[in-house]
């Protein structure tokens, strides 16, 4: 093989075959497979929507599947928001549950029907200014996101000076403070203290959460692919070099933190509408770990990875439910199959995935049709050579 051939092969493998040679086209992001990819995207989206419509039409029979899909969509927003911070800006924060709690409580409190308020707050009574304050779902969620973003902006000033593990610990502490604050007796007339709030109106159909999730993820994707997103990635890769390229570290870190928290708050609001009744126990550290798990499994630095991870984790927990039920071979009751066994297998599967797919399912790549086809072509080429 000549040196030149080798070079072209290498560039093909990195998925940028069309890049070499034609600088102008590359700068303008021209893709030779655009037509094919567009067709494929349209077909898959249509199939997905058709499936959703079918589910929705038979909502009564498929309420279980619908609830898994809804929850996956909600976690996907949270995971992509965390990925924006951890995977793209390189800031490891564990404050997810705290920001979700803020979003959830703002959304929850504001959307409870005015007529139902007295029954929700029957123990402590409701603050008079809040009694008649009611917002539709989406504005309430946005307000929840803004509240989370506001808190993030405030704590970001001291906390973002920290690095890696220290930042994680500080934000973890913040999340616990938020949880304690929400449950504090002084907040009883607003958050209903430890009783939690219920009667939150749920989604009218499964398209509502899916659409909100899609819009949120799309906005984050647009941001990641903008010049600000590139600046975030620069900070992740090398802070000193990023600063030498004129990127103000603090400003961009704060920006990423605030935007991530905004969408985390929205995912919290979505969760409130999904669960319909929330209390502070919902927002324990476990929630953060679940989101983190999705991010790590899907691939740190991959938006599509987070979405796939969310569906896998939320779906997987349910698909494995048969393990909790007793099974028998003939007359012999297998002793392993009892409640709790599911979690053993689930954890084992996760460990296997992390061991063998160290950078998650997607690594830091994004799903694209080109990637898929290149994989296949590569496999074919390998098969041909040997």
């Amino acid at each position, binding site marked *: 093989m000549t040196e030149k051939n080798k070079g072209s092969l290498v*560039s093909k493998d990195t998925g940028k075959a069309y890049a070499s040679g034609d600088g102008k086209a590359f700068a303008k992001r021209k893709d030779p497979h655009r037509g094919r990819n567009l067709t494929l995207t349209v077909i898959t989206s249509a199939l997905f929507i058709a499936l959703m419509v079918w589910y929705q039409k038979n909502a009564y029979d498929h309420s279980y599947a619908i609830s898994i899909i809804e929850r996956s969509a909600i976690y996907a927003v949270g995971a992509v928001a965390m990925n924006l911070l951890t995977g793209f800006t390189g800031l490891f924060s564990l404050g997810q549950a705290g920001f979700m709690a803020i979003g959830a409580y703002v959304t929850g409190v504001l959307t409870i029907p005015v007529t139902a308020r007295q029954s929700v707050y029957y123990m402590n009574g409701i603050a008079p200014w809040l009694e008649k304050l009611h917002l539709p779902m989406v504005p309430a969620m946005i307000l929840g996101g803004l509240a989370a973003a506001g808190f993030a902006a405030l704590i970001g000033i001291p906390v973002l000076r920290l690095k890696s593990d220290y930042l994680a610990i500080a934000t973890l502490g913040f999340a616990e403070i938020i949880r304690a604050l929400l449950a504090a007796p002084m907040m009883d007339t607003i958050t209903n203290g430890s009783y939690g709030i219920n009667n939150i109106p749920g989604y009218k159909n499964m398209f509502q959460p899916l659409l909100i999730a899609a819009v949120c993820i799309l906005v984050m994707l647009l941001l990641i692919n*903008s010049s600000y997103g590139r600046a975030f990635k620069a900070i992740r890769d090398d802070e000193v070099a990023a600063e030498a390229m004129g990127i103000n570290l603090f400003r961009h870190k704060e920006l990423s933190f605030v935007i991530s928290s905004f969408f985390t708050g929205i995912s919290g609001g979505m969760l409130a509408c999904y669960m319909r009744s929330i209390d502070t126990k919902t927002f324990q550290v476990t929630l953060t770990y679940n989101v983190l798990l999705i991010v790590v499994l899907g691939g740190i630095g991959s938006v599509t990875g987070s979405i796939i991870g969310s569906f896998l984790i939320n779906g997987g927990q349910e698909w494995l439910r048969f393990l909790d039920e007793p099974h028998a071979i003939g007359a012999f009751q297998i002793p392993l199959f009892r409640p709790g066994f599911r979690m053993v297998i689930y954890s084992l599967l996760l460990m296997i995935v992390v061991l063998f797919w160290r950078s998650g399912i997607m690594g830091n790549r994004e799903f694209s049709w080109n990637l898929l086809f290149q994989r296949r072509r590569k496999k074919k080429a390998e098969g041909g050579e040997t």
Partner: protein
Amino acid sequence: MAAENVLRIENVTMQFGGVVAVNNLSMEINQGEIVALIGPNGAGKTTAFNVVTGVYEPTNGRVQFQGNTIIENHPRGKMKKLYQGENPEVFSNVISKTPDRITKLGIARTFQNIRLFKAMTVFDNVLIATHMRSKANVFSAAFRVNAAEEAANREKAMELIEMVGLLDNAGDIATSLPYGKQRRLEIARALATKPSLLLLDEPAAGMNPQETEELAHFIVKIKDDFKLTVFVIEHHMDLVMSISDRIYVLNFGSLIAQGTPADIQSDPLVIDAYLGTGVS
């Protein structure tokens, strides 16, 4: 006079704890010059760069860029007692700018130990450097209101990549390139910030003689094309002697000589400390 100096370093001392890394360094770099800073390893050359670019806050001294003071400091706090340098009373102001603001003023740099954005393509590495001069805020950038500006930036980044001869590698991951190409990429990235003063920290390190010679032509070319002033740290004496207008020599943090390449080559102090007797 002052207006002519692009960069003016006055009595800069950088002390880390009890170690004086740069001692009372004063330099002037004029518009359109190529000035080299040479000296043995550990002489404090890179430290001087880091002071100018705002990575370190000097213990004492002042740096002026295009007539404006960008950095000034005097021994304060703990350093008041520890300070071992000279002129502790000369400077009274404290001015410090973060590296990004100094870059914005028009000082760009490359790094001795290459610092590319590892996980990104060659193209993205250069494109990132255009972000600083972009007028878009986060909303207009995310919702593509700045599409025209973005397109112009992408085109400009591509031009720079073409200029440094990396067109075929534009889509490759930066760290997959061979060393010499990574160095050229760093220069392209620095140029994308639209500097008026370019600081090159050992740009020829790890290059073979032929690559070094190409680099020499390249530095002179970009200096003329982009109307730059170049301040370079380098160990390759052939390169330094062939392109520099003036040379400063550091040893143990102190300036031991300055002058034209011819002066430096015959300076007994420099020969003793750095060049050795083998050089004619």
